[in-house]
């Protein structure tokens, strides 16, 4: 086992000397490459096609979100968080709103909590669907992409009907929700659950027992639970390595403790296990959604929050289980209307760190598979 502490690091400038000199080949993948899911640049050191080490170069999408936060009021910053992990914007919003609510010591009313959970879980399914499509595409199966996008469309339609936006939803407000669920919201969600269940089976039919899929994913990008914890890797990647840990269960937020669901885990920590874990997670999310839809209470959707928010001086760290892992917000308030400091703990950023370890001694083609299986969104990595 390679020591995770010694992550590779080297300079591409020396590449010219090594290129074609038989033993080592330094190759640059990205930032514009079809399989790096955005503008990730990976510098690979290869022995033939075997990866000796790699270094990620990130920051191409850096927009200084944390700096922006310091110059916006708490409410004004809310839409910005959607732009980080743009495939799971609702989760980002939930994390931020709950963190500020904690700072203000308010709690969203139950009805708002239920709708929040429904939308967040829908978004988790959408995020996993997008992951599955692109991941399968990276491995060479082109058809799942279209299947998952077809079904993700239904989720986006619900979002659109609810808040008018499909991707960067800005669905939640600090203290609750701005919009009451539209007429037929429950019916739509129920219909979606019924619609998507056979579709998930359909994805599995294409891939789960597909020989080539098995060969490409089993034993690829293995990471042990211990390494995961050492590298701070969370989310499905951690669970696939056998650590049964999900913030929804461990440190429940929103009203997740009201719902009955299971945390899937894998044993081998390879790409296939991560695939299976995410597939089960989609089903579990459906379970939560069904319970939530059945139990939406009547009542207000907005807690009493002052128009101009001036949280008391102090700092708070709040994190949620985003589709990609632990998404944390560390907010420092100096008592003014603007946050003194907002730190986002992005799951993609921290998970991406494990790429080097997971790719060692694998082949170039596996790097693609591992980047896919980590499920990173560069918007969130670079912020």
């Amino acid at each position, binding site marked *: 086992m390679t020591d*995770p*502490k*010694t*992550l590779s*690091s080297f300079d591409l400038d020396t590449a010219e000397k090594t290129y074609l000199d038989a033993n080592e080949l330094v190759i640059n993948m990205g930032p514009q490459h079809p399989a790096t899911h955005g503008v990730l640049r990976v510098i690979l050191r290869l022995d033939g096609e075997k990866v000796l080490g790699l270094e990620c170069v*990130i*920051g191409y999408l*850096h927009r*200084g979100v*944390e*700096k*922006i936060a*310091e*110059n916006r009021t708490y409410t004004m910053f809310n839409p910005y968080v959607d732009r980080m992990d743009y495939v799971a914007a609702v989760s980002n919003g939930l994390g931020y709103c709950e963190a500020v609510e*904690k*700072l203000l*010591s308010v709690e969203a009313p139950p009805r708002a909590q239920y709708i929040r959970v429904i939308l967040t879980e829908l978004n988790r399914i959408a995020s996993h669907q997008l992951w599955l499509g692109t991941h399968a595409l990276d491995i060479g199966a082109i058809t799942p992409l279209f299947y998952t996008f077809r079904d993700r469309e239904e989720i986006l339609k619900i979002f659109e009907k609810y808040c008018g936006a499909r991707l960067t939803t800005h669905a939640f407000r600090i203290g609750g929700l701005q919009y009451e669920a539209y007429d037929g919201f429950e019916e739509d969600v129920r219909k979606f659950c019924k619609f998507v269940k056979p579709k998930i089976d359909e994805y599995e039919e294409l891939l789960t027992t597909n020989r080539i899929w098995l060969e490409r994913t089993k034993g690829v990008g293995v990471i042990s639970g211990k*390494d995961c*914890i*050492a*590298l*701070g*890797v969370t989310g499905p990647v951690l669970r696939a390595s056998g*650590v049964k*840990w999900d913030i929804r269960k*461990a*440190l429940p937020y929103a009203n997740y403790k009201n719902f009955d669901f299971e945390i899937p885990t894998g044993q081998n920590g390879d790409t296939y296990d991560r695939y299976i874990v995410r597939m089960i997670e989609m089903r579990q999310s459906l379970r939560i959604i069904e319970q939530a839809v059945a139990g939406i209470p009547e009542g207000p959707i907005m807690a009493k929050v002052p128009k101009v928010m001036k949280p008391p001086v*102090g*700092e*708070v*760290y709040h*994190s949620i289980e985003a589709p990609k892992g*632990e998404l*944390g917000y*560390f907010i*420092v308030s100096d008592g003014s209307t603007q946050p*003194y*400091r907002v*730190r986002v*703990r992005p799951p993609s*950023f*921290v998970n*991406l*760190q494990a790429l080097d370890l997971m790719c060692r001694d694998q082949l170039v083609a596996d790097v693609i598979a591992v980047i896919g299986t980590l499920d990173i969104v560069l918007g969130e990595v*670079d*912020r």
Partner: protein
Amino acid sequence: MVAKLNRAYGSGIEPLTHLGQNYMVVDRSLIPELLQVLRDEEQFDYCVDLTAVHYPKREKQFDVVWVLYSFPRNERIRVKTLIADGESLPSSVPIWATCNWLEREVYDMFGIKFDGHPDLKRILLPEGWKGFPLRKDYGILQQDSEWVQINLGIESGQ
């Protein structure tokens, strides 16, 4: 736990609670040992986050914050230390491997140096960028126009 730590390290540790979240402010001199103890003896095996906050008016300008989590205890804690500008901290990469990139980001954004870090360089901003954007004295309209001019070949629009 805090009592035990207090016994060992004396007054260097100040346990606090805000909104139900525990954190401790520790003296800078305690930093590598205390973190090591927290991981090894108190089972805080997962470093969630490492970040900093800049208070330009204070004498010790920076809060450096570790957010730690313990899987066995299911508990989260924050460790905070105060350092002055130009002061460096020992790297915690040997304790938690995840601190590698997190420390690089803190260096990138605040210019806080971590001694013993395997490869401390900018991570989100390009190499050669001037200034540390998350410091409060880094104006939002200010940009490294020199870098922009050299690397992008355009006049900075700001």
